[in-house]
């Protein structure tokens, strides 16, 4: 192959070919590649619809008010239900399951992991870049919808009292980020360890997480228990679930537990991924 021109002025310095790329530039490179694949995909279209639907709910609510259809809840109550029930308990965990189990599995299934593993990239950076892309994508889809929903619902009957509600919005944005991070980290681990992570992920979400309704210590072993306690607004449960009201766990402890759990799951994921052999056959 003919000699290529060296780097011009202002370009990156010559590469150090005795070491792999540094963690941050490596993760950034993988992040860019993964983000492009994630954002312009059919799967993200479905997620965008699911995560952005509360804006439609808010617009519908405003429409009901204009049409003088009797509403069963106030705007802020509806916002509380959307945050606590729609996002934190249901859609965010599903979004995490959707994306995070596929971070490495997609590359294995598509047999493109070989290209990443044959670049001078530390393996932890590959996983970190992909996780960052997942977090970036989901936050980009969720947070604007959350803010728009809040603004539409909090101002449904005028701007009175909105000032006291705004801190709730910032708190909820933090909870959303923490939910995506913690569920994402757990499902990343499932995706790296198991060949078929979807069913165990679904069983975790729709069977194990139900123990949050059981009194005692078990709710502390669920993610939904801690996240639910961080959300300020707790709508009353209806039906059978109303017989088993959730415990409210300490907020400070919840923050620490969720951050630590996210870090632990990610660290385990990195550890497993760094040691695993991937054999991709034609």
């Amino acid at each position, binding site marked *: 192959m003919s000699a290529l021109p060296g780097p011009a002025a202002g370009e*990156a310095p010559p590469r150090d070919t005795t070491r792999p790329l540094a963690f941050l530039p490596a993760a950034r490179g993988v992040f860019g590649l993964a983000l492009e694949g994630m954002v312009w995909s059919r799967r993200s279209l479905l997620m965008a619809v699911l995560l952005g639907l509360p804006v439609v709910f808010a617009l519908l609510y405003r429409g009901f008010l204009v049409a003088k259809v009797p509403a069963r809840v106030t705007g802020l109550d509806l916002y509380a239900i959307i945050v606590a029930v729609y996002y934190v308990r249901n859609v965010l965990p599903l979004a995490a399951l959707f994306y995070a189990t596929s971070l490495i599995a997609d590359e294995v299934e598509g047999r493109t992991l070989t290209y990443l593993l044959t670049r001078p990239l530390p393996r932890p950076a590959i996983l970190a870049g992909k996780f960052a892309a997942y977090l970036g994508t989901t936050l980009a889809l969720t947070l604007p919808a959350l803010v728009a929903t809040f603004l539409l619902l909090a101002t449904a009957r005028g701007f009175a009292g909105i000032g006291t509600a705004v801190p709730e919005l910032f708190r909820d944005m933090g909870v959303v980020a923490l939910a995506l991070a913690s569920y994402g980290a757990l499902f990343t681990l499932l995706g790296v360890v198991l060949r078929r992570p979807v069913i165990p992920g679904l069983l975790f979400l729709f069977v194990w997480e139900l123990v949050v309704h059981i009194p005692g210590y078990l709710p502390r072993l669920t993610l939904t228990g801690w996240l639910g306690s961080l959300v300020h607004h707790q709508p009353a449960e209806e039906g059978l679930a109303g017989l088993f009201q959730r415990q409210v766990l300490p907020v400070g402890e919840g923050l620490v537990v969720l951050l630590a759990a996210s870090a632990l799951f990610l660290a385990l994921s990195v550890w497993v991924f760094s040691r695993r052999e991937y054999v991709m056959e034609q």
Partner: protein
Amino acid sequence: MTAPLEYARASRWYGPVIALNDVSVAVPPGVTGLLGPNGAGKSTFLKLAAGLLAPSQGEVRLLGRPAWGSPEAFHRVGLCPEVDAFWEHLTGLEFLTALLRLTGFGEKECRERAENALHQVALHDAKDRKVGGYSKGMRQRVKLAQSIAHDPDVLLLDEPVSGMDPVNRRRVIDLVKKMGREGKTVVVSSHILHEVEAMTRRVLLIHNGRILAEGDVREIRDLMDEHPHTVSLRARDPRHLARAVVASPHVLSLSFGADGEWLTVQTARPDEFYSALPEAAVEAGVTEMYSPDEDLESVFRYLVAR
């Protein structure tokens, strides 16, 4: 000085199946053909070299360090995998620049190198088309392009010309030979013997996970002295030729072709036979000569059957 790629008693098994069995080989700079039938262990050999698998036993060293767990080696190593897999939504140029970015090049240099590599594989005109819309041959070429774009010192090519038309196959063969002349270490894996023969005379023959032989094809052939060498000659007077050669003690058998023009000789000493041939060939009016045993296939068949 250590060879760029070394196997020291390397073995690899998948459960109870041994894919590579006690392989010790040093691959020098230049082009080396890795030959074997399907299931022989070629892919495992290359995956061990590329650090995608760890040896179950023994050691595999790439550029002086263990192949497994040394991502820094990939600054100087390129792999063209056999699997047909891409991020289909990217164009050819985007595919290459993304991978070059991951190799640590700056933005401008990524683009320059990507365009250069696409030129080398005659894909420059299609660089802005999505890889998902490429034909099989184009996909194979873009795969090759990503393996050479960062100008590696070691190139591992797994079936590089699979699916290519004759023109592009020739182009790739010439490219591989050129890289070998430049002192790069190129390992080309294939089960199509004449393709490898066109690229190099240095081969590693592998079968059932073991190395059968390594070195120059001719040298390997010469060492197989208990296997008679067959030479076929077309002559004006084959019987005259037969009379001339039959007296030699190393001629084992003679047979005539059905058309009466060909004489097939089996000899235990091909070099001595060739030395003695010219005089007899002129007298008998030899117009054509070939030896089916000069080619790789016969060498391989013989070694496998041993």
